[in-house]
C-alpha cells in the first residue's frame, strides 16, 4: 500500500512537473522570435490630408488645432475652438447658436466656409451655414482640426469660399477602453460624455454618447428694458465609428450619428416673437473605402447621407396687441379679423453625396490627386419657401491637383475644379502656387486662387412669410428671393513665409494677402416691397403699419476688397509648455448694401475687423498640474451690432492616476475679462465657471 501511494505521488509529481514544463515551454515559444517576422507584409499607413504634404509644402495657410490645444482651451463647444485660428471671428448669436467666419462679413448664418467632419461636408443646404449646436459630434472625439485659411474651391468645391475647416475625429484604436466626462457650470450647464472603444477581430470601433443642457445667456437690459431671450438647449447625441481592415491594404470606415435637440428661441412675454422651441432631429451615415496600392498610390470611394429635420413654429399675439390698437380697428386697418399670426421656420434638409478620389505619384517629382463627386441636396420647408414640393440641387464636380518639384528648391502646386449645379451651372476654380525653399525648413510661397459660392436654397428660393391663422392669407413677407442669383466669386493672392525650427518646436506661417470678393449676396431690407403682396394690406405709410411692406431680399449687390497681414505661430519650447499665437490685420474697402428703395448701405470695412488676436499658453507640470490661459480679441466689426471683444479664459487642472485608469479634474473660468456682446448688443456673454471631471479606463 505504501508503494502504491508512493507511485501515485510520483505520478502526480511527474504530471505536475510535466504540466509546468509544458506551460513554461508554451510561454517560451510565445517569446521566441520567428524568422517570418522579417519578411511579413505590413499594412501601408496613409497620413493626414487629401494629398499628404509636408507642412511647408502646403499651398495655403494652415492652422492645426491639436488634441492638446483642445484640452488646454477649456471650451465646451466646438466653434469656440476656432478663436484660436488667425483671422477667425466666432460670435454667440445666442446662448445656443454660433456664427464662425473668416475675415468678418457674416451674419447669423455664416455660409462662406466649408466644414468637413472626416471628409463629410456638414454645411446645411438650406442656409449654407453650419448648425453647430445640433452637430452630432462630441468635443472629446476630435483628434485635430485643420483650418485652411483662404479660398479652397479647387480642392473642396463650393462653399470653400473663404476657408475650409477640416475636423478629424480620433481613430477608434486610439481611444480603446471606457471614457467618461462630466461638466457642471453656471446657468445650469450640464454635460456628460460616455465613450467606449473596443475591438472585434479586425474591426476597431468607438461609441460615444453625449447629453447636455443649459439655460443660455443671462437676461440683460437694453434701453432700460429687461430682455429675456430664451436660448436654453437640451441635446442628446450618439455617434458610432468603425474602422475595419478588410485586407492588408484595404480599409473600410463606417460612421453613424444622430442628434435630438430642443433649442429655445424667442422672448419671454413678447408679443411678436414669443418663446418657443425648435426641435431638431438629425442623423448621418457615412461609408468610406480606401485601397492603398503603395505609399505612392491609393484610391478612395466615399458615400454619405445627411438628414436634418427642424420643427420650429410659433404664433404671435393677436394683431391688435401687435399694433397696440383696439381689436375693432383691426379689420379697418388690415381688412381681416383680429387674429394671431403663424410663423414657421420648419425645415427638412437632406444630402446624398458620392465621391471618388485617386492619389498617385507619377514621377519622383510629380504627385497628383484627381477625383469626381456627385451630390444631391433637397430642402423641404413650407415656412421658408412657401411650397410643399422639395427644392433640389444636383451638383457634379471634377477636380485635380498636382504637386511638382522641378528642382530641389522649387515646388509648384496647381489644380482646378470644374463644378456644375442646378443653380448656377458651371464654374471653374483654379489655383497656382509657387514655393521657393530658402532652406530645408523655410519656404517663400506666392499663390493665386479663385473660388465660387453657389447660393444656398434659402438665398435662391426664399419666400418666408407670416400668415394669418384663420385663412392662411399673407400677413407679412419676411424674406423673398426672385431667384436667378449668380455665384459669389473670390480671387485671392498670397505672399507667404512658412517654416519651422530644426527641432520642429517652432512653426510659423506669415502671409500678406489680398482678396477680391464680387457678387456677394446681400440681404438688404426692401423698404417698399410689393412683389409678393396681393392681400388687402394697406402699404400706405400714412395708414398702414410700415413694417408690413418691408422684406429682406437677396441680391448680388455687395462687394469687398480685403487685404492685410496674418501670422500663426506655434511654439513648444519644451514638451511641458505650449504657446499658440494667431494674429490678423485686415483692411477692407467695398460696399455692403443693406437697404433698398432707396438703396443704401455701409462700407465693407465695418464688417471686417481690423485686428483679430488669439493667444493660448498652456503648461503641464510633471506633478500633474496643468494651467492654461487663453486671450482673445476682435476689434470693431459689425454682425448685427457693432461689436468689439476682449476676453480671457483660464483653466486649472490636475491629472491623476489610479490602478484602474487615469483622469483629471479641471476648473475653467471663461470670459473673465467682463461682460461683452459679440453679435447683438443685448445678447451678452458673462463670466462663468465650470467644473470638469473625466476618467478613462
Amino acid at each position, binding site marked *: 500500500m505504501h508503494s502504491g501511494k508512493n507511485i501515485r505521488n510520483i505520478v502526480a509529481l511527474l504530471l505536475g512537473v510535466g504540466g509546468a514544463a509544458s506551460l513554461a515551454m508554451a510561454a517560451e515559444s510565445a517569446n521566441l*522570435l520567428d524568422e517570418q517576422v522579417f519578411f511579413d507584409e505590413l499594412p501601408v499607413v496613409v*497620413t493626414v490630408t487629401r494629398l499628404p504634404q509636408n507642412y511647408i509644402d502646403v499651398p495655403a495657410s494652415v492652422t492645426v488645432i491639436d488634441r492638446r490645444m483642445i484640452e488646454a482651451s477649456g471650451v465646451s463647444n466646438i466653434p469656440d475652438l476656432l478663436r484660436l485660428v488667425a483671422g477667425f471671428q466666432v460670435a454667440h448669436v445666442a446662448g445656443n447658436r454660433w456664427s464662425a467666419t473668416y475675415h468678418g462679413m457674416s451674419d447669423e448664418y455664416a455660409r462662406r466656409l466649408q466644414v468637413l467632419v472626416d471628409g463629410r461636408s456638414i454645411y446645411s443646404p438650406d442656409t449654407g451655414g453650419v448648425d453647430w449646436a445640433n452637430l452630432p459630434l462630441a468635443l472629446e472625439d476630435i483628434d485635430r482640426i485643420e483650418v485652411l485659411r483662404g479660398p479652397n474651391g479647387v480642392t473642396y468645391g463650393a462653399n470653400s469660399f473663404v476657408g475650409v475647416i477640416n475636423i478629424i475625429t480620433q481613430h477608434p*484604436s486610439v481611444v480603446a477602453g471606457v471614457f467618461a466626462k462630466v461638466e457642471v457650470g453656471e446657468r445650469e450647464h450640464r454635460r456628460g460624455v460616455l465613450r467606449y472603444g473596443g475591438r472585434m477581430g479586425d474591426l476597431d470601433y468607438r461609441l460615444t454618447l453625449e447629453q447636455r443642457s443649459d439655460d443660455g445667456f443671462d437676461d440683460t437690459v437694453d434701453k432700460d428694458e429687461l430682455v429675456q431671450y430664451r436660448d436654453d438647449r437640451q441635446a442628446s447625441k450618439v455617434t458610432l465609428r468603425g474602422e475595419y481592415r478588410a485586407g492588408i491594404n484595404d480599409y473600410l470606415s463606417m460612421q453613424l450619428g444622430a442628434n435630438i435637440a430642443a433649442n429655445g428661441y424667442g422672448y419671454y412675454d413678447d408679443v411678436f416673437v414669443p418663446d418657443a422651441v425648435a426641435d431638431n432631429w438629425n442623423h448621418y451615415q457615412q461609408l468610406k473605402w480606401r485601397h492603398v496600392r503603395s*505609399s505612392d498610390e491609393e484610391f478612395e470611394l466615399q458615400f454619405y447621407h445627411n438628414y436634418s429635420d427642424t420643427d420650429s413654429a410659433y404664433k404671435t399675439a393677436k394683431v391688435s396687441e401687435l399694433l397696440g390698437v383696439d381689436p375693432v380697428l383691426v379689420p379697418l386697418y388690415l381688412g381681416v379679423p383680429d387674429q394671431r399670426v403663424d410663423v414657421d421656420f420648419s425645415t427638412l434638409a437632406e444630402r446624398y453625396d458620392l465621391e471618388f478620389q485617386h492619389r498617385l505619384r507619377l514621377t519622383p517629382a510629380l504627385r497628383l490627386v484627381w477625383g469626381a463627386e456627385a451630390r444631391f441636396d433637397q430642402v423641404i420647408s413650407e415656412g421658408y419657401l412657401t411650397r410643399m414640393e422639395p427644392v433640389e440641387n444636383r451638383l457634379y464636380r471634377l477636380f485635380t491637383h498636382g504637386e511638382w518639384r522641378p528642382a530641389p528648391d522649387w515646388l509648384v502646386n496647381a489644380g482646378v475644379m470644374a463644378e456644375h449645379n442646378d443653380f448656377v451651372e458651371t464654374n471653374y476654380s483654379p489655383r497656382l502656387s509657387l514655393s521657393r525653399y530658402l532652406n530645408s525648413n523655410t519656404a517663400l510661397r506666392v499663390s493665386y486662387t479663385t473660388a465660387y459660392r453657389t447660393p444656398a436654397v434659402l438665398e435662391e428660393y426664399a419666400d418666408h412669410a407670416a400668415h394669418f391663422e384663420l385663412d392662411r392669407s399673407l400677413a407679412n413677407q419676411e424674406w423673398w428671393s426672385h431667384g436667378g442669383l449668380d455665384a459669389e466669386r473670390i480671387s485671392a493672392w498670397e505672399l507667404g513665409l512658412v517654416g519651422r525650427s530644426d527641432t520642429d518646436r517652432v512653426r510659423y506661417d506669415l502671409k500678406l494677402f489680398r482678396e477680391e470678393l464680387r457678387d456677394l449676396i446681400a440681404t438688404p431690407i426692401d423698404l417698399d416691397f410689393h412683389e409678393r403682396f396681393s392681400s388687402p394690406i394697406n402699404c400706405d405709410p400714412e395708414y398702414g403699419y410700415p413694417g408690413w411692406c418691408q422684406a429682406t431680399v437677396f441680391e448680388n449687390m455687395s462687394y469687398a476688397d480685403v487685404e492685410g497681414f496674418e501670422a500663426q505661430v506655434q511654439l513648444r519650447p519644451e514638451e511641458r509648455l505650449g504657446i499658440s499665437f494667431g494674429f490678423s490685420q485686415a483692411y477692407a474697402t467695398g460696399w455692403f448694401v443693406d437697404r433698398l428703395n432707396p438703396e443704401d448701405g455701409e462700407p465693407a470695412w465695418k464688417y471686417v475687423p481690423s485686428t483679430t488676436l488669439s493667444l493660448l499658453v498652456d503648461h503641464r507640470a510633471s506633478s500633474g498640474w496643468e494651467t492654461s490661459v487663453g486671450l482673445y480679441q476682435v476689434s470693431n466689426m459689425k454682425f448685427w451690432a457693432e461689436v468689439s471683444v476682449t476676453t480671457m479664459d483660464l483653466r486649472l487642472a490636475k491629472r491623476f492616476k489610479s490602478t484602474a485608469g487615469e483622469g483629471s479634474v479641471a476648473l475653467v473660468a471663461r470670459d473673465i475679462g467682463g461682460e461683452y456682446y459679440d453679435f447683438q448688443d443685448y445678447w451678452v456673454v458673462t463670466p462663468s465657471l465650470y467644473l470638469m471631471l473625466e476618467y478613462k479606463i
Partner: protein
Amino acid sequence: MSDSGHIARIRPFRLTLCLGLILLAHVSSVAVAEELIVIGDVKQTYFQSFLAGLSDDADIAKRYGDPVTVDIAGIAALEKRKATSTIVTIGNSAARRIHSLNKSGLIVHALMTEGMLDEFRKENACIECSHAVLLVEQPVERYLVAIKAALPGKSRLGIVYGPQSERHAPQMHMLAQRYGLSLVEKNISEQSELRVALTELLPQVDVLLALPDQMVVNSDTARTLILDTYLHSVALVGYSSSMVKAGALMAIHSTPSQLGKQTASLLLKNKSDASHSGKGYIYPDDFDVSINYQVARVLGISLPDEAVLRQAVMQQGAQ
C-alpha cells in the same frame, strides 16, 4: 600500304577512346556530386528567394547540382537519406526538426534567430558548436551605424522593448554611449501597453528604432507605430522592407536572396571558417538600406540615395 589505310585503322580506336573518356568523365561527375538538401516551409516566398540566391552560385551548382527541397512536414523521410547529404535548414522550425533527427554531416542552419540559439542552449545543445549558423537578424550595432550615417543631427534615440527584444538592452546601452546617442527606453509586456509607451517616449526622442519583436511590430500595431511617429515628427527605423513600404523612414535588412548567397559561401568554405563574430554564429554580411523618401520629405529630412547610404554603413561598420 597507303596513309588512308593507316588512318582508317586508327580512327575507330581514337573514337572509342574519346567516347570512353567522355563516359568516364560523366560517370566521375555523377559519382562525386554531393546531395544538397534544403529544408524549410516551401510555400513561403522567402524560401524560394533564398533558394534562388543559393542556387545562383556556379560552384554550388557544380558541386551539388540542383538542391533537393524538403518541406518541414516531410522531414521525417530524411532519416532514410544517406548520412553524407549536405543539409541547409531555413528558419527556426526546420533547424529544430533537423536537430531532433540528430543528423551528422555538413549542416548549415540559415535564417535562424538569436532567440532560437538561446533555446538550444537552454537544452544544453550548442548547435553552433557543430554546425554553421547564419542569423537572419542584423547586428544591432548596424542599426546605430545607419542612424548616425543617415540622421547625423538626431541624437535622441528611443526603443520600445518587448519580450523578444529586451535581450538587446544591455548591448544597446553600451552602443548608444559609443555612438554618442542619448537613449530613452520603454518596456512592454502586453501589446496594449504599446500606445502608452509611445505616448511617453516619443516627445523625448528624434528617432525610434523598432527592433524585431512581434509584440511591438505586427500588422495590428503598425498603424499606431507609424502614425504616432509621424505625428511626433520622429523618424522610425526598422528591420524589414515591408516596414518602409508601410511608412517607416528607413530599414536595414537582408533579403532572402542575399542570405542564400552567403549560405552558398559557407557551404563552399566547408564550415570550418564559420566564425565571424567569434561566437559560433554569423550575422548577414550583405544587406540593403531601404528608404521611404516620401516620408523623409514629410519629416523634412534629406537622405542620400539608398546605395550611397548602404556604402557608408558598410564602410563605417568595417572600421
